[in-house]
């Protein structure tokens, strides 16, 4: 058995496309969540959907909790620490006032997220006032500076590991845009200066500080009051910083979530346009299927992981062989062998990464021209200055002329034609819904397209087509069952949710597995609304006729197919025959074994059980079914 049949064609060289489905794990991330716990975080609320208002503190906790859950699944090697500031109690290695590092058993302050951490963090709000407490840490008249302390603690936590191999980040949640607003005069200047210096020291150590500001409904978070200096925003960057406006809770959460993840570049590619002009693009995997984690084999006695060893054995001699560098296929009664270099060479059909071939109207891109998830491209001037300008110009022209670009993407695993679709930036309620850039759609070749519909050509001269009345009735249904604000990816994947709720429960040794809600089931209630029912009924009458009975309408206009008819007769017959036996009696007296297999099958068929296996298997199946 070969674990990975595609492995055979994998090149020795770095294969960029294997990342289409799996992101590279090599870049680790250390994150300190720095959450402002001042009374102001509790007093300012944000209107949620169902009358209930949520505090900013709650929103911050919610975002961190979401992020932890994602990390434990997708990037479990990342390490996190959760740290509150402006607290009554203190808990940190430096014993600084107003800073509380939250942690659970069997875990360092900065460590990989565990099931217990997630669980206890989810319950922290109930006991927060009692165990940690909220209290302003910067008060005029004292020289206390909780923000300074918080940065110091966070920086100390991030001391471990090399900044070269690890992304170190501090994510700061606060709704106070002017932390030293209550202080006056020289003290204020002094405190501002020392705090900024502290932040700069952190940056110098390779730690990036990111601000996740929470705006008050009536007043936007003013980043230029203090934080612009702290996080090093100047000029252009400052203009780019989008304060999370948005009055709605969901919007705010959305924006915070987007900002919490670092963008990971899949690859940098060159895009050859025309006449020798090549620009630089970064590619990003914005949409990729998230799969349940891989299976690790364990020793069931010790529960310790096992090492999988793969050995290659020559089928002819039984000798152990090294991983072979040659491949073969029987062809014309011979074995034709290929070296791995030859196979790579066969795939090298184009020079360079991405080459523009021309443009087409958007209508040429059909719904079936798709094979795998798209890749997002965004320009960069880092290496070649002027790239962004060309990209923006083309982007605008393509949007305006409603055209897409066709290009050849010379990847080493599957070189293929791609469509580049320009996507305009979409901003809704202050947040970015779609980033500006282009999406690379992988196009099929003629070899990949099947013409199934032509296999079912109508035997008659022409096929049934809907009448105008039927179309009208269908339109009425469509109008009624309209998902107004449908957004792609509004559903959580119920399989994954279940998977991880099971794992979480098992990891915490809980008895009960929490039920998850399957968001993907149809809205029965909405479907039962009188207007919808009426429209459906009218449509049904229009296409199926007044006296349509679903049960009798089997395949082909009421004619059941041969096989289904046959199956039905068999089961009817079996039920009849089966009723001739007193099965309970036969089972109790152990006389089942005296019956023939044929007779046993009457029972099984009548009860819709499988009829496969030997006689003993049939008997035991019957007994199991009877509960004996």
């Amino acid at each position: 058995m070969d674990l990975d049949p595609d492995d055979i064609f994998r090149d020795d060289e770095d294969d960029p496309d294997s990342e289409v489905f799996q992101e590279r794990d090599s870049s680790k991330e250390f994150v300190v969540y720095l959450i402002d716990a001042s009374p102001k975080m509790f007093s300012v609320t944000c209107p949620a959907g169902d009358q209930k208002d949520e505090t900013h503190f709650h929103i911050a906790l919610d975002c961190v909790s979401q992020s932890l859950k994602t990390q434990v699944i997708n990037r479990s090697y990342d390490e996190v620490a959760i740290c509150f500031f402006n607290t009554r109690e203190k808990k940190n290695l430096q014993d600084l006032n107003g800073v509380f590092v939250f942690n659970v058993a069997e875990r360092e302050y900065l460590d990989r997220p565990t099931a217990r951490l997630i669980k206890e963090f989810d319950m922290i709000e109930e006991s927060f006032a009692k165990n940690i407490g909220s209290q302003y840490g910067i008060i005029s008249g004292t020289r206390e500076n909780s923000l300074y302390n918080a940065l110091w603690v966070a920086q100390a936590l991030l001391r471990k590991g090399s900044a070269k191999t690890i992304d170190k980040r501090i994510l700061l949640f606060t709704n106070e845009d002017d932390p030293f607003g209550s202080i006056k005069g020289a003290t204020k200047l002094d405190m501002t200066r020392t705090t900024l210096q502290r932040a700069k020291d952190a940056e110098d150590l390779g730690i990036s500080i990111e601000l996740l500001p929470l705006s008050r409904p009536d007043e936007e978070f003013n980043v230029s009051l203090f934080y612009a200096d702290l996080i090093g925003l100047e000029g252009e960057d400052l203009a780019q910083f989008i304060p999370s406006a948005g009055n709605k809770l969901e919007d705010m959460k959305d924006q915070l979530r987007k900002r919490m993840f670092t963008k990971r570049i899949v690859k940098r590619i060159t895009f050859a346009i025309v006449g020798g002009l090549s620009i630089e693009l970064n590619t990003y995997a914005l949409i990729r299927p998230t799969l349940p984690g891989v299976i690790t084999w364990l020793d069931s006695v010790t529960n310790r992981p096992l090492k999988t060893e793969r050995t290659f054995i020559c089928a002819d001699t039984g000798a152990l062989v090294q991983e072979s560098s040659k491949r073969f296929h029987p062809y014309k009664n011979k074995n034709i062998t290929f070296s791995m270099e030859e196979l790579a060479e066969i795939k090298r059909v184009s020079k360079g990464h991405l080459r523009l071939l021309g443009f087409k109207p958007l209508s040429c891109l059909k719904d079936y021209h798709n094979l795998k998830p798209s890749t997002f491209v965004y320009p960069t001037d880092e290496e070649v200055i002027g790239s962004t300008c060309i990209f923006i110009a083309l982007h605008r022209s393509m949007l305006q002329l409603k055209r897409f670009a066709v290009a050849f993407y010379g990847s080493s695993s599957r070189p293929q034609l791609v469509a580049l679709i320009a996507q305009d930036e979409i901003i809704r309620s202050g947040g970015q819904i779609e980033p500006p850039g282009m999406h690379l759609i992988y196009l099929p070749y003629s070899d990949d397209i099947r013409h199934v519909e032509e296999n079912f050509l109508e035997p008659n001269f022409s096929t049934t087509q809907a009448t105008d009345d039927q179309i009208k009735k269908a339109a009425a249904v469509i109008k009624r069952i309209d998902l107004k604000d449908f957004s792609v990816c509004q559903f959580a994947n119920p399989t994954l949710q279940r998977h991880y709720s099971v794992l979480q429960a098992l990891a915490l040794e809980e008895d009960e597995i929490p039920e998850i809600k399957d968001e993907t089931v149809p809205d029965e209630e909405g479907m039962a609304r009188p207007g919808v029912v009426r429209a459906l009924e009218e449509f049904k009458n229009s296409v199926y006729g007044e006296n349509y009975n679903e049960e009798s309408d089997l395949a082909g206009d009421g004619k059941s197919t041969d096989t289904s008819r046959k199956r039905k007769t068999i089961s009817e017959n079996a039920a009849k025959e089966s009723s001739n036996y007193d099965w309970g009696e036969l089972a109790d007296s152990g006389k089942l074994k005296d019956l023939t297999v044929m007779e046993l099958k009457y029972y099984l068929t009548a009860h819709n059980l499988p009829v496969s296996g030997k006689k003993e298997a049939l008997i035991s199946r019957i007994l199991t079914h009877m509960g004996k």
Partner: protein
Amino acid sequence: MARNREALLLLLDVGPSMHSVLPETEKVCSMLVQKKLMYNKYDEVGIVLFGTKETDNDLTKEVGGYQHVVVLRNIKVVDGDLVEVLQELPRGTNDGDFLDAIIIGMDLLIKKYGETNKGKKRLCLITNALCPVKDPYEGTKEDQVTTIAKQMTVHGMKMESIVVRCLTGDSKNRTVQFHFMGLFETRNISPVTIFKGDLEISSKLRIKVRVYKKTSEEKLPTLKKYSDKAPPSDITATHEVKVDYEYKSIEDHGKVVPPDQRIKGYRYGPQIVPISSAEWDAVKFKPEKGVKLLGFTDSSNILRHYYMKDVNIFLAEPGNTRAIAAVSSLARAMKEMNKVAIVRCVWRQGQSNVVVGVLTPNVSEKDNIPDSFYFNVLPFAEDVREFQFPSFSNFPASWQPNEQQQEAADNLVKMLDLTLPGKGEALQPDFTPNPVLQRFYHHLELKSKHPDSAVPPLDETLKKITEPDVELLGKNKSVIDSFRRCFELKENPKIKKSRRLLREKMSGSIDRESNADISAQPLPFERVASLNRNQSCSMISSSHLCKFCQEKNLNGFCQYLVSKDLTLISKIEAIDSEVTDDEARSFLVKSETKVE
């Protein structure tokens, strides 16, 4: 011949007017046979040539007539010789009569298999249909076609025709056509049903549908690992490599843990949670099989880049006129209103995952193909990474294109057009073959003769897919030049390592410019592969035969039917140049032209 096998008869026109396209015919036919050798090695193939100098077929001997038709190879199981035969087709000297060739082909199939055979029988005709068809001995041409169609139906044969059209007709100009290859179904894949059951609009309204794959990536054949351990003298050696997996304890070195002592563990953070398959089955998510509508929404709500996978097609249950009408009315209403449907699918009972996807209407342009839906998988919340990117408007002024630059870009996007009027659409996925597959099979064949053959260069015709079209670039030289003049690229002085990269790029640009110079000169091959199928290689149909064969259900992947005489061709030719791309794809166009 078993049910899943195919008997294929290639009817190839090798007359003088076909000589220019014979190299392409050879390539496409040999690739077809090569794929059969790999995937369907028990399929049977025969070759009939027409337009030859000689005459060699049974019917000539039995009843006379049928001149210039040669049965090059009777129907038999595919073998390597066949590839070689197809790569060296003889050049004929006479005009060929394709109706004669069709009759000879049918005769071969009938004689070989009789009426009872269950396998597929396919005739593949490649001709330019330039030579007039002779009048039959009895009756009219129409009668003859009628008889042929009837017989095909009786014997369950399908026919595909490719009519190559070279407008220049000048055999000195090598007409190269990769579309030719894309047109041909070189591999026979029977449709796999993904789902058969109800599309539930509501609990009270169901439509019987079947779901099939519409696109699926055709990969290179899976090759086996080669072992050279067996002595060369051992001719029975398999040379295969077996892979053995052993699960060993990490603490206790070398100790192999038997399968019954192993348990699966799933990672959750730093913990690995052990769970047996039985326990897992008991707790895992188990949705009911079924396809349910969640609702309709504006098509603008589903952006194209959210499509996640290869595409499926939803067809109404064949023969069920009510289901067909139901699908058709929904599809047409959706198209009119610019709506799409969101559905939740569990294809099989016992499947543990749910798929949420979008149905888009596929309103058929053809009379005999019912309306259907395309189905694309949409992402779940977990599948989307919502990164934020800076707005372009926030970039510094130096990064913003000025008016002149924008105009140059507009011109480039407008002029570098792959859908020039009268030339049709170039690089349509439906007609663009995979150059890697073609190259692989070419190399495979070379290696079968000389094991040490080097990888052959990419076929000239296939470079149209991987490289910009020289003709298109040449025609738009001024637009390209002005685009080049408007924009300036320079390396970032702060980054050293890119220096080398950039130098490469610069030298690349010089190459490209010299290319452009060449393209300004008259091309060695004038009209190298017109990008358009309508002009140089087009499918035409006579209204009569077309209608007839629809009645007789002569279905096939491309049911390109053939006109009966020259006058008709020239008329359709004129029509052809105006047809839309969709029409070009619909081969059974009902022609308004009267048959004369």
